[in-house]
Structures are given as C-alpha cells and as structure tokens.
C-alpha cells in the first residue's frame, strides 16, 4: 500500500491511489467520532453522513471491491455500535458494505477525480445508501419507513457538496 499503480482497463488506464499508513483508519475513526458527537451540539449536522463519505472516498480511490466492501462493513458496523441499542448491528453495516463495493467497482472503471463526477457519485451513492437502509428496515426488520421524501434529496445534495470538498482535502493524504 505504499505506492500508486495503474489499473489498465482496455485502452484507458485508471490510477490506483495509496495513502499514508494509518490514514484510512484515522479518517474512518474521525468520521465516526464526528458523526457521533457533532449532532449533539449541532443538531442540524445530523443531516451529514461522514462515515458514508469516507467509505465512498476510499472505495473510489482504492478501486478494489474486496477492500472497499470490507472497509464499508467495518465503518458501518462501527457506526451501528455507536448509534445506540435501537440500531441493530448490521443496519448501517449492510448499507456501507454495498456502497463500498459499488464505489470500488465504479472507481475501477471510471475516472472519479473530477469534482463534478464526485458530486454526482456522492449524490447517487447517498440515495442508494438511504434506499438500502429503507429496504433493510422495511424488509428485514419489518419496521415502517418512508421510501422517498424531500429530506432525502436535500441531504443527498448537502452531503454531495460537503463530500466534494472533503474529497479534495482527503486527496492530500495520498502518497
């Protein structure tokens, strides 16, 4: 994991990025801590999902589906653990596992370095992530949950905007 290398796909080649040691873990922990503490003082920040943004970023950058889904799983389970007893372990885990897998798979095929592409991807992944959470809650947990609402679109847009900015900052952690 020390050096960047290139992943060849047909005639195009996509660069696979490497990060400083501990950067992934550090960013994941920071995102989880922020997600767990910030809404306590600033309730409106509850709209953000930093663990999801971290999952998407490292999935797109690492471009390895196995690594991406495992990272998503770990972050998701940790988020479940920090979310209190009302959220069962696996709730966010399933969602972020799928997102980690999708992000890695898409990152291996598309150039996701452009901010516009990142915005669109984050927006889409956020919606998909919320869709998975709704499915899990309705189908697996048999609990009522609204499918689509205005709040979802706003939250997706806010997270996409923040994510686009955050990704630029995280790019600095690359080797």
């Amino acid at each position: 994991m020390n050096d960047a290398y290139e992943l060849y796909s047909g005639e195009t080649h996509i660069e696979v990025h490497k990060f400083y040691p501990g950067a992934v873990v550090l960013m994941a922990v920071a995102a989880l801590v922020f997600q767990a503490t910030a809404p306590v003082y600033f309730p409106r920040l509850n709209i953000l999902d930093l663990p999801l943004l971290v999952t998407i970023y490292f999935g797109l950058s690492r471009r390895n589906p196995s690594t991406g889904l495992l990272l998503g799983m770990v972050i998701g389970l940790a988020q479940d653990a920090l979310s209190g007893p009302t959220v069962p372990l696996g709730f966010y885990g399933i969602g972020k596992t799928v997102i980690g897998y999708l992000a890695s798979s898409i990152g291996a095929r598309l150039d996701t370095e452009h901010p516009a592409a990142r915005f669109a991807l984050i927006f889409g992944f956020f919606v998909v992530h919320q869709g998975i959470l709704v499915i899990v809650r309705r189908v697996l947990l048999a609990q009522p949950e609204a499918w689509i609402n205005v709040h979802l679109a706003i939250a997706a847009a806010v997270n996409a905007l923040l994510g686009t900015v955050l990704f630029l900052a995280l790019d600095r952690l690359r080797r």
Partner: protein
Amino acid sequence: MVAIPSKHRSLTLLAAVLLAQMLMLAVQIKVDSRGRLIRVWAISAAYPFERSGAWGFGKVGGVWNHYFALRNTVQENEALRIENDALKLTISQLQTRAAEADRLAGILGFKQTHEQVPMVGARVIAASAGTASRTIEVDRGERDGIRRNMAVITPDGAVGKVIEVYRDTAQVLLLTDKDGGAGAMLVDSRTQGVVGGTGEPMIQMKYVANEDIVNVGEKIVTSGMDKIFPKDIPVGTVVESKSGNTFKQIRVEPAARLDRLEAVIVLLSQEPVEFKNSAQSAQSGSASNPSSAQSATPASAEKP
C-alpha cells in the same frame, strides 16, 4: 476446494459479508411476539420447502400406499372379509336371539298374566319333514306334564293340539293340517262350527249354514266344544265367505302365525284363557247372544 475466479471473488465476498450481517441482524432483532428475527426468517424460509416437502411426501406416500405397497392387501382383504362375515353372523345371531327374547318375553308375559291357568312354555325344535302334514315338535314332553290332546297356543291365538308325547318332547298337530281342527264360533253371531286345515296356510270354518250371516273380517274364537281348547281363544279372521251346497265355504286367516312358530304355550288344562284382543269382542258378542255363550261355557271346564 473449489477455486473462485478472481473476477467473482469480490462479489462472493460481498455476498458473504452481507449474509453475515443479515444473520447478525436476525440474531439481534425480536419481532413482536414472534421471537427473534432469525427464527422468524428461518421458519419463513423453511415453510415453503416444508410445505412442498410435506405435499411431496404425502403424494409419494399416497401413490406408494395406494398403488405399490399392496403386498399385504390381498391377505388383509381376506382377513377383513372373514372378520366381516363373522361379524355378520354374530349380528344375525344376536338379532335372532333378540327376536327370540322378545317372543319368550311375550310368552312369559302371557304366562304371568294368566298365572291361574296351568301352562308350559315350549320351544319349537322341529317341524314336519314334508308338505303332507303340518306338525311341529316342541322341547317339552311327558316330564313337563304334557299329555295328548292338550291345546297349544301362542299369545296371538290357537295353534293346534298335542298328538304325540314323548319323555322330553311332544308333537303338535297344527290347525292348518288336513287332520287338524278345533271347535270354533263366530264372535259376532256366536254361530258355532269347526275350523280345520286344508294343508294350505289358510284354514276353513265348516258346518256354518248358508242362512247364517258371516261377514268378512269377523273374528273367530274357539268354542270350547271340542274339549281341547278353552273357550274364546282367538282362532282367526274371516277373509272369504260364500255359500256352498249346504254349508258356507269360509276361509279363515289364522290368528297365530302358524308358518313362523318358534315358541308356543301348552295349556295343561281347559280353564278359560283370557285374550285381550278377543275378550272384549267375545264378551260383547256374548252379551248380544247370551244363549250361545251359555251353551258353550260348561263344556270348557274340564282339566286334563
């Protein structure tokens, strides 16, 4: 170990990770009162297979049992048929015994209501071997006090008389025999005559003048003049009456079912026996014609 292609490795890993987390969810969650989610899932997932399995096993079992596993069916059928026959026989025997019990109860009741009249109940054990005679054999004989020319009746009416007596059995000549007969009289007109057999199920009343009025349906009772039957025992009912050369030709249906005798009563004396059915009509007849009643009464008082 089956090697997973590298391009499917991540997909397999994804499936495994998702499955593991779903199971983890299922272990944690309780759904209402149905227990943990994993149990609900397991049962829900297994239910279609269980149902299909049960349906399949039921069908296979049914086909097997109904079409293939018939190895012992023949023997079983045979055993059941034998058992069925035995049960039928048992039922028949029980019905026979019940009917016999009814008959014996009737005779017992008759005896009990006529305690003052010495009589013996007897069971019919044989009948005449040919059509030339109408006789029966009963299981009571000399040891029971039975003698020749004693009257034999049933609760329904006159049957015949004892013609032979042995130590333990006796032969009875029925009214339907050509040689059988009894002194009789018409209940309404008190006209006396003699009833006798012709070898047919019906009997005839003889020696009734053409001038006498005989109505179809009229009852006939014993007159007691034969010194065998007590007076006023039902003999039968007139079913046909027409004028003859000198006497009327009167066909009478016997009161007792002489073709189906199984138990009878042997009267050990000629004391009058009161029959419920005929007594009233006989008494009414006597009242209407007291002279004939008086002429018949004294002759019936002889004991064997």
